[in-house]
């Protein structure tokens, strides 16, 4: 689960990680007030400039015009008006971008150097890893490609935690000495405590800056939480921003199914993530375009299938539907019943191609035999994919 920059900074602050002073605003009026408040907070007497940063679940905001500068309360309001309510498209978003519902106003600082630090999990080796680099403020993957030795890594024992001697070594790798070395050591330890106690998947500061007055500051903050860990952290789970997800994704998650919006016109309903991805793959193989990935789960019940189907029907772009179910524990006749329930009383115009295999497939076929729905039973997955692509092309 992704968090916004302002949420990540708040969390970092509770662990003693220094962040720029800032206030979040959800309307231009609030942005105007926030500017004045921030100016006071920063004890600025005369000219005061602050950043006005669009809060979206993606990077690349600066280059996309999502980070503005305001030098007066009025300007702050104007900046907020320009950003709020729009969709920001960056190189990390889809072409339709993400909606901006909040802006973060924070103080600008004079920077001497930009550094990088992060903690994540090496999934294959099953160990937390801390990363540090003197090349902050740029895309870290580019650094990894062009100058891999510029990134220092160390593993963290999950039971012992990040040790002070490791943190000192990382501070040295950042090229810091004296007080700054001590401060940055503490920062690494604080990042580990943050990572561990929130069941994070990633905590990252890029850039971590050395200011001209000799402080370290997390100019940008990124926190991604482990979805599986959220059950342990209900207060963090509440930070979820559904506006940053496809609208149907949220509706799907409420009924316990997994949905990802794609760009095409063929709606898919499948049980199992791997099978759902493979279904999207085979549609593409036959030159079709899936409208979504939808996994009702290996053990979905009739209600979930009904709800999932309704989600597909609610998608205006969908011109044909492919249902691919391998019934193991899930019975095919339940799927059939779910389809019938979902479409009861509705006039469904999108042709539905159904491929069922596994438990109770004969019962399922019987249930669907007399439906008035525009439904075709496919013999196998290849046949199903070819049929649905044909239908979609016609519409």
């Amino acid at each position, binding site marked *: 689960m992704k968090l916004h920059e302002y949420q990540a900074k708040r969390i970092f602050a509770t662990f003693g990680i220094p962040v720029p002073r800032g206030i979040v605003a959800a309307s231009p009026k609030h942005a105007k007030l926030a500017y004045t408040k921030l100016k006071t907070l920063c004890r600025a007497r005369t000219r005061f400039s602050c950043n006005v940063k669009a809060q979206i679940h*993606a990077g690349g905001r600066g280059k996309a015009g999502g980070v503005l500068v305001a030098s007066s309360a009025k300007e702050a309001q104007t900046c907020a008006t320009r950003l709020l309510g729009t969709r920001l498209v960056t190189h990390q*978003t*889809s072409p339709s971008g993400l909606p901006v519902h909040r802006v973060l106003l924070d103080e600008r600082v004079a920077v001497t150097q930009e550094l990088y630090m*992060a903690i*994540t*999990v*090496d*999934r*294959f080796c*099953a*160990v*937390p890893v801390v*990363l540090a680099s003197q090349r902050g403020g740029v895309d*870290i*993957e580019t650094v990894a490609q062009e100058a891999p030795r510029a*990134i220092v*890594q160390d593993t963290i024992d*999950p*039971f012992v935690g990040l040790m002070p001697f490791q943190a000192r070594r990382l501070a040295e790798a950042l090229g810091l000495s004296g007080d700054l070395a001590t401060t940055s050591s503490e920062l690494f330890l604080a990042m580990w405590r943050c990572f*561990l106690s929130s*069941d994070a*998947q*990633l905590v990252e500061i890029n850039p971590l800056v050395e200011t001209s007055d000799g402080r370290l500051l997390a100019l940008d903050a*990124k926190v*991604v939480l*482990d979805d*599986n*860990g959220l*059950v*342990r952290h209900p207060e963090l789970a509440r930070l979820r921003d559904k506006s940053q997800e496809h609208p149907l994704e949220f509706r799907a998650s409420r009924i316990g199914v997994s949905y*990802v919006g*794609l760009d095409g016109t063929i709606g898919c309903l*499948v*049980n*199992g*993530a*791997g*099978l759902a*991805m*493979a279904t*999207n*793959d*085979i549609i*593409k*193989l036959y030159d079709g375009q*899936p409208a979504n*990935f939808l996994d009702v789960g*290996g*053990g979905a019940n009739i209600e979930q299938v009904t709800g999932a189907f309704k989600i597909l029907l609610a998608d205006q772009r969908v011109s044909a539907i492919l249902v691919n179910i*391998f*019934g*193991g*524990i899930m019975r095919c006749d339940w799927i059939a019943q779910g389809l019938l329930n979902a479409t009861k009383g509705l006039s469904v115009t999108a042709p539905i191609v159904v491929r069922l*295999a*596994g*438990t109770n497939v004969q019962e399922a076929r019987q249930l669907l035999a007399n439906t008035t729905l525009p439904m075709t039973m496919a013999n*196998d*997955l*290849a046949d199903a*994919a070819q049929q649905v692509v044909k239908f979609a092309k016609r519409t």
Partner: protein
Amino acid sequence: MSILVNKDTRALVQGITGEAGSFHTQKMLEYGTKIVAGVTPGRGGTRVHGVPVFDSVRKAVEATGATASCVFVPAPFAFDAILEAVEAGLSLLVVITEGIPTLDMVRIRRKIQGTPVRIIGPNCPGVTTPDECKLGIMPGYIHRRGPIGVLSRSGTLTYDAVWQLTQAGLGQSTCIGIGGDAVLGSSFVDLLPLFQEDPETEAGVLIGEIGGTEEEEAARFIRAHMTKPVFAFVAGRLAPKEKRMGHAGAIVSGGRGTALEKIEALKAAGVTIIESPAAIGKTVAAALGRSASVLRRNPSSV
């Protein structure tokens, strides 16, 4: 490949009194698996489908000699249940549970380092040696005994693949679903050696998907150590890129987790890539129909 489980494997079910544990215990018994005990703290002395329930794994092992466990314990309690099973000396854990926090699995992996216990999963459909033993939730009827070893990260896609192989006349030596989570008990590379050593397994089928570096690591192993032909289908060529993990994750793992990268790595290792998920059975059958010796590989010959 009856190295993991066979007709003599005595298994217990942790979480046997829960809905999933109870339902699947019955299905496993129907398949012929020797479920000799169940464990649910506080429910010792009762029976589920005739299977005696114990309060602890240790008590269950003392009473029944079980050596394996199938874990259905809900995610918040699974860490504890797994460590309990490890401490009790079980040699195989098949963890069905979905939703175990990643850091719990990180801790478990650290804890079992240097011990002989093998953990499959979590978030996996289980392990089946056809006609002998099924530990998990996959439907039994899709399997038949034969020469193909199946290793998969998926659930229902595995069933589809196994069913296709069965219908193509290609039975399976063992099918292992390694699980869909980020951190797993066993990787492809931990299990591929078992395929290679097993006299019954003539070829391997790998079912991969986006995310992580399982397939890339498997490719390295296959290239260096496997002589038996391997076929692979990797799901998710279409998955949108922004759904992947953070950039730091990519740096740490050395791969961006895209299907194409995995396919390229596997191809370079001499693995036959199956293009369509509907053609898994057909592709393997056609390839093995040709002279098997043509397909024999020498390690590092590619």
